[in-house]
């Protein structure tokens, strides 16, 4: 008994010896980390909002509701509104195929899905100019039929879709592969159709991963600069998205306007982070619960409850 008492020495002292680093080293390491955060994260965000409100709320608001900024907001929403759903459909299909089936060339497909990440966005934009520009492969045909792609809205949507292509798929592939195929196989033996398995089992299982992917995809779609800049043509009020509008306002000495629009994009990033945090928390929470219930019972209860939990 006496030995037990001696190990319960004063708690503060005990913590220190457990860490095993001197006070100085700890203060230094934590200080460096905080300084790093302050310089690279807090200061820029504070600058954006500080400059945006430097002349007060009135000019800030006036900059946000200026015609050209509203047009940029509309175009940005439209672009994200088209490219995100496209990438969701593609992402689910690709992830389903890659994680549930084995076939020849699978690793090639995974690499191809990642391709837009490995090329610079400027190249992504130039690809479309080379394809659809007046001297591009399809240029003459398009101009004959009076279809505008480059320097118009379709080009912006295409470039954005291309750049954000891997985001949903990558997220889902990781989640689906981690979760395995047990439930799907069970459903198959019970006679469920492929679509029913996707709709009632796989999608509910990966829904947080999907939401996470959509959020990331949306953030990138709204924030993309490089590729969009190449195909946009920079026509005010027609082909300027929010990031391009920031550049234009800045170049026109309208610093309040530029930072006001930048603050919108920063706010979008902050919202994205929050939703991402919630999604991550839900995933880990679910996993913990699932592991706990599997440890407690030999019979898994999850598939039944998750089937009932989904309303078609």
């Amino acid at each position: 008994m006496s030995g037990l008492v001696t190990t319960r020495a004063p708690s503060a002292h005990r913590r220190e010896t457990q860490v095993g680093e001197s006070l100085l080293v700890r203060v230094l390491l934590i200080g460096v980390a905080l300084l790093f955060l302050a310089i690279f994260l807090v200061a820029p965000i504070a600058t954006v909002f500080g400059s945006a409100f430097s002349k007060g709320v009135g000019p800030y608001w006036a900059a946000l509701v200026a015609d050209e900024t509203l047009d940029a907001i509309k175009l940005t929403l439209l672009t994200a509104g088209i490219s995100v759903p496209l990438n969701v459909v593609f992402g689910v299909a690709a992830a389903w195929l890659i994680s549930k089936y084995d076939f020849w060339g699978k690793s090639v497909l995974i690499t191809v899905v990642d391709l837009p990440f490995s090329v610079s966005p400027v190249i992504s934009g130039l690809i479309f100019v080379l394809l659809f520009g007046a001297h591009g492969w399809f240029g003459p045909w398009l101009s004959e039929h009076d279809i505008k792609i480059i320097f118009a809205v379709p080009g912006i949507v295409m470039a954005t879709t291309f750049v954000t292509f891997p985001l949903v798929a990558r997220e889902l592939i990781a989640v689906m592969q981690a979760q395995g195929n047990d439930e799907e196989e069970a459903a198959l033996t019970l006679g469920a159709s492929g679509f029913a398995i996707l709709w009632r089992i796989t999608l509910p299982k990966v829904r947080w991963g999907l939401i996470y992917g959509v959020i990331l995809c949306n953030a990138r779609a709204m924030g993309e600069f490089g590729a969009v800049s190449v195909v946009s043509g920079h026509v005010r009020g027609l082909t300027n998205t929010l990031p391009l509008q920031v550049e234009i306002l800045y170049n026109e000495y309208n610093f309040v306007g530029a930072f006001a629009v930048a603050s919108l994009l920063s706010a979008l990033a902050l919202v994205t982070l929050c939703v991402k945090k919630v999604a991550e928390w839900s995933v880990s929470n679910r996993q913990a619960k699932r592991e706990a219930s599997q440890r407690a019972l030999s019979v898994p209860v999850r598939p039944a409850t998750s089937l009932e939990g989904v309303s078609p």
Partner: protein
Amino acid sequence: MKIHKPLLIALTLLGAVTLRAEVELLNVSYDPTRELYSEYNKAFTTYWKGKTGEEISISDSHDGSGKQSRAIQDGAPADVATLALAYDIDAIYEKGGVNAAGAHLIPKDWQSRLPHNSSPYTSTIVFLVRKGNPKNIKDWADLTRDDVSVITPNPKTGGGARWNYLAAWGYALKKFGNDEAKAKDFVSRLYANVPVLDSGARGSTITFTERGIGDVFISWENEAYLALKEFGPEKFEIVVPSVSILAEPPVTVVDKVVDKRGTRKVAEAYLQYLYSDEGQDIAGRNYYRPRDGKAVAKYAKTFSKVNLFTIDEVFGGWQKAQKTHFADGGVFDKIYLARK
């Protein structure tokens, strides 16, 4: 049904963006004309409504002149091109391709279609220095000093940048009695003092004024005056060199685009109105040198007297200057590659 809703909204939005009823005009212009054309567009819209009753909306796009020329060649739907120098519009004729009927984007003789070589306003190249002129910069020769850092955009992409380069070259030819080798050496030493080459004039202005890089900014006269107006004369001052170049930024309608879109009439009127009293007055107010009418006398005091030479006198025209100096492998490439 749930799946179709976003699609429906997206299509509706797409319709809203692409279908605007009124006549639209797109002016693809170079970098520093943002303020000029944003004022002129309003004036012309009012004038056109009064004259014809027609509602029009005019959009403009700005970037380095060479880059904009390239965008028009690649199919940007510009009704009018208002660029920094004649070669960039020549390039639209030369490199813009031909359709099945053999027609170019614009005719070869585009420059003779409007008065004054199709340049409704002119400008020149001056220096912008920090207040009090701490490095005591007086003339082109000071820009080659070791202790002077010079800001100027990239002549491969910017229009003003090419005028800057040629103005320096013209000064050197004059100083060294038309010795080309000495002129090249002079310009090489000048570009060795340039820490950043932005793609257009406005980018360089921001580099010099906002980012505080460099001792002197070689600038369009209009851009220098605008910087004084935006940042206040207590921060910068303008230095006029002993000689400079007469810069003539030309304008043209893009025939293939206006004929296809049915906007020729309004596009031509848009350019002609630049020569009117109101158009000239707006140019003068935005620090471009007016060419005609009352505005010339009205703004005479604004601009300092500069000893100007033209590109035709010294370089034999834009075609020749472009091929010698700015084409791939030309003099500028050699200077810039050798500067380290």
